């Protein structure tokens, strides 16, 4: 069985050394927990906002909510 080398990998290893580590920031356990809590709070706030808009729409329109042009 023959192994075919990848010319791009060969070039990288020869002229640029080992590939760089994966970019990005590694979050600590505390940072992950805090981010999750903030995300949940934003989701709840948005949910509450949708409910408020819905309720006020119903109150403002009253019985007319069922009146639609055919």
């Amino acid at each position: 069985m023959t192994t075919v080398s990848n010319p791009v990998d060969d070039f990288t290893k020869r002229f640029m050394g080992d590939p760089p580590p994966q970019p990005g920031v590694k979050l600590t356990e505390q940072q992950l927990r805090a981010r999750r809590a903030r995300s949940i709070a934003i989701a709840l706030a948005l949910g509450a906002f949708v409910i408020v808009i819905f309720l006020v729409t119903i109150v403002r329109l009253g019985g007319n909510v069922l009146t639609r042009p055919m």
Partner: protein
Amino acid sequence: MSLTVARVEPSIAGVGDYIELMKPRVMSLVVFTALVGLLVAPGHVHPVIGMTALLCIAVGAGAAGALNMAYDADIDVLMTRTAGRPIPRGRITAGEAAGFGMTLAAFSVVTLGLLVNVVAAAMLGFTILFYVVIYTMWLKRSTPQNIVIGGAAGALPPMIGWAAATGSIAIEPVLLFLIIFFWTPPHFWALSLYRTDDYARAGVPMLPVVAGDRETRRQILIYTLLLAPLGVTPWLLGYTGPIYGVAAAVVGAIMIALAFRVRAERGGYVASKQMFAFSILYLFLLFAMLLVDRMSGLVFGHIAL
């Protein structure tokens, strides 16, 4: 040319830090006074509309608190009373607080305008702007009259509540505004008397820092002598019944007695601490009595019908 890029650490701020940024204790007083303004207004407000208005006012007050903390982060770190706030503790950056505050301010004003009415929304927007720009950015660091003029921002919520219910302004909510307006100086000066070092260290020209202890005690007495009769005015003008009138006269008399004790006190802060604590109770009782008076009027009104 080299370019330096600051590395920003991912945030560890929790939900509690953001709630703290909204000054929940101040917010509770704002919501309570706005609720009273809303309920004593003539006519009927649908509970959903009323709750929406209160929610918007609460969020607007929180936005103003967050913007205040964002701007004052440099002096908050110097004062014992404020050093534990989220920005001085390094939990939230001033930029994050400013972004949070501006988002909430925009949401609260627009939502109040679209769902309740434009008059209330305009007043809420003005209140936030007044508190952040006029008081926090300008007056607080430049004049000992900072909390006198700036107190207008804290006095507006009952007017916003009234406007949310009626879509307009009348003399009754203006009286409520004046009561809180004249209540603010004795309340804050009683506190600043025993926090003078804090304010001096931060370079905030509060009255005791600039004019001294004795002058502050004199001013507390003057403002309290104006406040107590003003508290009874809604009854004298016939807007409330005797329940409110008697209660306002009693708590007003206690405020005056405490202000005299503050004036007479030398080399101690027992009376000023009592005055500060009672002033909160005073405002709460006054507004609670307005509600009781209004509710009892409704009940008797129904019986008469």
